[in-house]
């Protein structure tokens, strides 16, 4: 059974939660990530998630296995949306059950943090001003330097500074 899953339809937390139920567990913790109407000071109208499915599932499973190992939680699941989402929609759901609450909280936090950093899922935001952009990618362009040129000291000086 998959612990990490991708969905192109609305997530149902009630159904997802059932998979966490375990008579040995006294604590359950869930995190829901919602689509917000503002990012970096710009009004967001809607967004789209795109995933590299096979690797997203693998990396997601690895994160959940790490969480179980690190925190000793009984069960851990994560469901992530792909496709078009409206403001307020549930984008990602993480649920953990454990003997006690502490490790459930910790594992839940670990999972969402790692998923955001590691799983190949991308987010495109559509803004009120008609513009759109891929989150975290807009500052990654490099000046079109010849790919095989030796980097000289002067180029170091010119290209050494990164956007924030």
């Amino acid at each position: 059974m998959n612990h990490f899953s991708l969905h192109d339809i609305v997530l149902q937390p009630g159904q997802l939660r059932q998979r966490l139920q375990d008579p040995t567990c006294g604590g359950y913790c869930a995190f829901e990530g919602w689509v917000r109407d503002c990012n970096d000071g710009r009004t967001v109208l809607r967004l789209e998630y795109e995933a590299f499915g096979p690797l997203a599932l693998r990396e997601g499973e690895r994160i959940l296995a790490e969480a179980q190992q690190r925190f000793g939680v009984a069960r851990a699941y994560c469901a992530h949306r792909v496709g078009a989402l409206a403001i307020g929609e549930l984008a990602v759901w993480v649920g953990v059950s454990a003997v006690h609450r502490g490790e459930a909280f910790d594992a839940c936090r670990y999972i969402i943090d790692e998923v955001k950093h590691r799983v190949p899922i991308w987010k495109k935001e559509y803004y009120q001003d008609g513009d759109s952009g891929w989150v975290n990618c807009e500052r990654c362009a490099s000046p079109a330097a010849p790919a095989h040129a030796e980097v000289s000291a002067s180029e170091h000086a010119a290209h050494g500074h990164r956007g924030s």
Partner: protein
Amino acid sequence: MSTTELYGLVLTGGRSRRMQRDKANLTYAGKSQLARVMELITPLVARCFVSVRPDQLEDPRRAAYDTIVDVLANLGPMGGIHAALHAYPDRGWLVLACDLPFLDSATLQHLITHRNSTRVATAYRSSFDGQPEPLCAIFEPSSRALIDQSLAQSQQCPRALLARSDVELLDLPNPRALDNVNTGEEYAAAQAALGAATPPADGGTRRRLKVRYFAVLREQAGRSTEELETHAGTPRQLYDELRHLRGLTLAPEFLRVAVNDEFGDWRSPLSDGDTVVFLPPVAGG
């Protein structure tokens, strides 16, 4: 909380007693180790320096870069880190050894992403002994006092310093990324592993590869997938080729690569029939 600006320091002062030669000038795939490390680190830091002994200042390979000269003699890596922290005391320092041929950008980016500037340093756990690796680590301004104190007590081992300090310790995403080269045999093995990634300039093997594009790269390439026949022998060479062919604007330093649905290395040789995916910075959640 704001994080102090990050500078880079590449240590080249070592005397390579076991190698009997200057490690900075060892070459892999036709490029000196120093040039390789500088290419990796430069896009990730605000400024980057080569750490040198006073007698190495004239060396043309080192002089091509900004340098920081050891203030205290014969202290090894600790002397280089000491000099950098005294030259720019209010910067964080990404310190790298010059003998890490397998070091990749993903390893550095992971370190930077998980930097904890409230602690003395952020470092990787060694794959061999679990101890902090001081020579691919971020030293915060707060480490300066500890280094001064260590040196005052004639303790010159940066690993021991980190082992007893408040350090953010990370697991290596790629456990082999910090394997170093100390002997002629190790050098030959690393050369073979990395040199294999470079195809001959012409008349070399052509491979049939499949590329899948996602997100911003899919939009820039104007397609989700393509098959091509190419001389590119590694993902890095393939990206350089496609960057020009498809007008991709993202610098490879910001990307990761996947080969056949698993994270891969930019320098690993590609095989006929491989499927390659270049991964832009992710934004799930």
